[in-house]
C-alpha cells in the first residue's frame, strides 16, 4: 500500500508541475485549464468509483470457473455474444476500462473475449442521445451498429494472433 501512495504522489507532483509551468507562461489559460480538469474529473469520478467497486466485487465473488464458463476459452461462441453486446452500455473512459479488463483476464477470460469486450465498449450507448443531437440519426445508428461486427472480427482475429 505504501508503494501505491508513493506512486500516486509522483503523479500529483508531475501534474502540478505541468500546471505551474502553464501558469507562468499563459496565466489566463492556466485558470481555464484548472477549470476544465476539475470538470472532467467531477464528471468521471462516479463512473470511476463504480467501476472500481465493481472490480472489487468481481475479484472476490465471481469464481474463476464461473467466469471461464462465460468468457473463457471453452465458452465457444457464447463469450463473443456476451462480450460484443454488454459492454456497449458501460460508459467511462479507456482509463477506467483497462483495470476492469485486467481483472477479467486474471479471472480466466480469454484474450479474444477481452478484445471483443473493449471494442464493443466503444459503441458508447449512453451517449447516443447526445450523438444524435450533434450528428443526426442515420450516422449515429450506423456507427453504433458497425461496432458489433468490428468487435467480433477484432476478437477472433486478435485471439488467433495472440495465441500463435
Amino acid at each position, binding site marked *: 500500500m505504501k508503494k501505491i501512495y508513493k506512486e500516486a504522489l509522483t503523479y*500529483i507532483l*508531475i501534474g502540478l508541475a505541468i500546471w505551474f509551468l502553464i501558469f507562468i507562461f499563459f496565466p489566463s489559460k492556466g485558470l481555464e*485549464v484548472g477549470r476544465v480538469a476539475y470538470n*472532467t474529473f467531477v464528471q468521471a469520478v462516479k463512473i470511476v468509483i463504480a467501476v472500481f467497486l465493481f472490480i472489487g466485487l468481481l475479484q472476490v465473488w465471481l469464481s474463476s470457473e464461473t467466469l471461464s464458463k462465460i468468457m473463457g476459452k471453452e465458452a465457444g461462441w457464447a463469450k463473443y455474444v456476451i462480450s460484443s453486446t454488454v459492454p456497449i452500455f458501460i460508459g467511462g473512459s479507456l482509463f477506467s476500462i483497462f483495470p476492469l479488463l485486467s481483472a477479467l483476464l486474471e479471472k480466466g477470460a480469454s484474450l479474444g473475449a477481452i*478484445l471483443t469486450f*473493449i471494442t464493443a465498449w466503444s459503441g458508447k450507448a449512453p451517449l447516443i442521445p447526445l450523438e444524435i443531437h450533434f*450528428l443526426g440519426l*442515420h450516422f449515429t445508428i450506423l456507427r453504433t451498429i*458497425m461496432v458489433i461486427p*468490428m468487435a467480433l472480427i477484432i476478437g477472433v482475429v486478435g485471439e488467433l494472433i495472440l495465441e500463435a
Partner: protein
Amino acid sequence: MQNLITGLILLIFTISLYVIYFRKDRSKVKKSIEKSKKIFVQNSVRLFAIFLIISLLDKFLSKEAVGNFLLKFSGLKGILLGDIVGAIMMGPIASGYPIAKYLFDHGAEVGLVSAFLLSWVMIGIIAIPVELKELGKKFTITRNILAFFSIIIISLIMEAIL
C-alpha cells in the same frame, strides 16, 4: 450531463449489488471493499494527472484548428488522417461531437468523420502507458493495430452506405 447520469446509474447498480451480497456474506464484502480501495487509490490520482494533461490539450487544440486541418483532406487520405488525429485526441468523446459537427458543416466526408470519432474512442495515445501496464505489450500492440485498420474498413463502408 449524460456522463453524470450514466455514472449515477452505474454507482447505484454497484452499491445495490454490495447491499445484496452484504446480507449473504459480510467478510467477503469487506474483502471486496479492501480490493476496490487499493485499485481506486492506485488509479484515481493517475487519472487526475491525465485529466490535467487532457484539459491542457483541450485548451491548446481548438475545435477550429483541428477541424480546419482535417478539412484539407478527403478520400482514403482523409480517412487515414481522421484515424491518426482521432488517436491523438483525448478526453471524453462528448467533446468530439462538436468537432465532428463542425467538420460536417464544412463539407467533410462521412468516412473521415467516422474514422475520427471511432479512433478517438478506441485508440488513445495517452492511454497506451496504462494499457501496457494493465494488459501487457503483446496485447496492446495487437489491439491498437487491429483497431487502426478496422476503423479504416468501417469508415469506408460507412462512406459507401451514407
